[in-house]
């Protein structure tokens, strides 16, 4: 990961990735008794979808513009 830390964009991308993973890991403490989202999507499943929704665009931008091995 050293090469990702060299550039500002790399550091930002790692922060988004690690941050979303950490927030997802801690999320069960906040939605412990939460009802399903829209009455049907269980909270643990919705949390994972949110994680993907955060990582995916960050990944797309980072790898398209800044990937260190191009």
């Amino acid at each position, binding site marked *: 990961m050293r090469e990702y830390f060299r550039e500002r964009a790399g550091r930002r991308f790692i922060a988004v990735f690690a941050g979303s993973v950490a927030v*997802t890991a801690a999320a069960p403490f906040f939605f412990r008794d939460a009802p*399903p989202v829209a009455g049907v999507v269980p909270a643990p*499943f919705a949390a*994972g979808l949110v994680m993907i929704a955060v990582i995916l665009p960050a*990944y797309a931008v980072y790898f398209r513009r800044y990937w260190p091995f191009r």
Partner: protein
Amino acid sequence: MYDVSILGGFGLLLLLMAVYGYRISARTAEDFMLAGRGIGIAVMFFFVLFSISSAWTFYGYPGFLYRHGPGFSYFIWGCLAGLVGMYMFLGPRIWAVSKLNRFLSPVETVAARYESKALRFVLSMIILSAIVPYMADQALGVGLGFEALTGKAEFRIVGMLYLSMLCVLIVLLGGMRLAAWVNVVLGAVYTVTFLGSLVWVAAAAFPGGIADAAASMDPAQLALPGPEGKFTPAVTSVVFLVGLLALCWPHVVISAMTAQSKRIFVWMPGLALVAGGIFFYTVPFVWGVFLAPALSGLPDAKVLRLTVPEEAGRIAAEASDAGAALSGEEIERAAQKSVTSSCDKIVQRAVGAYMPSWAGVFVVLGVIGAALSTAAVQLMTSGILVSRDIIHGCFMPGAGDKTLLLITKGAIIAIVTASLLIAWWYPVALAEYLANIATPGFAQWGPAFVGGFVWKRGNRYGALAGSCAGFAILAGCFIFGLLPGMAVIPALAVNLILYVAVSMATPSPSKEVLRKFFDEVDVFLSKTA
């Protein structure tokens, strides 16, 4: 007879593929073990997706969701984040360094980073001890499929033997290249049968299909902590962290070494997130969280839900009628085993109840595809660990290609036999083999593996101290039944702390190693197309 001919024909088709793979292979160790480092993006994606999607995904995951509610989906999210992280940050480096130095196995690569034969032996043994039970999971899954298809418990062993024999023949004849190609075919069978059976069963049981099934659910069933209260917030978070450790699954790491070019590492994370995370793994989730519980909740349910208290009552009554004296603990254990087996077979039971009898065998083909696609890659990886890392690396360094291939093939037969014995001796829930045995075991080489590529200061003393201590804690907890499902946390914490502390307290790695694993890799990755 109909079922036997379908299963026999399927086996024959795979054998013909194996023979073809044998005829086109170059018969060198590199070709046999790493498919000549020539796997392109399309095959790589299916190769990886279906090498991690196994009988566990087909039976174990929906079964566990059915029994414990949606909390266990957190394991999949953790796995996804771990795999994506591996391909983003570590994959290019391990690919480049193994290509530059012609390393044939992940452990060989890590041992070279730390310049330690002892570490090579230790890491190989740790990974083998986790991978063999994981293969047992596949054999057991197919065994359960045969049992559910025929309704006879004695057919479990037939299914286990069927899978093991196919697996050995495919790997012996075709090596890693064929394992990758067979994964594409098996994955197609797997996806069609899994998705097809979901849609079919939902349409047969509910007028509005899956939407009706979901609407019929009690919201309490869709929330934590699940019907048996297992998924507390702490357990759910730990399950996520255990899943995250997928970044050091050896059969995933070795796939990075087979890549044709570095561009593969640009595409794999995106494909994994979209095709794997959003689409593929939603199928077992819908099976286990919506469809199967909704089927059990129908007024004239054909698929009954067993609960531990009810099953314990039945077992106690039967024992009493037969005049047998069972202790409370024995009754509880028997009830747990019965409920576990019943939940693991929930998909096949639903298929048997709602689809025509001729279709049941095709669903079992899907399970075989799922199990075989994973077991073949695991078997290949284990064979490489035994031959390349233990025998060649530690005891017979002068062995040539021919000897190495022969040893790999011998190791493959021995490993399959060991996994069959484990599946027979220890038939726990399919989901538990992966989450509680294999993944925590794989995690114990994680600090040495990840640290070796991102931290220049990490050295052999830290890697040896951490991995040995972590594995000892894990093994101790397993043997004495301590911290069930949680043992990986203290084991990994101690492993990591020792890795860092001992590395800091002992001399730095040599300049030669730093040049080979960092400077040369940076230059290579920056320049090659």
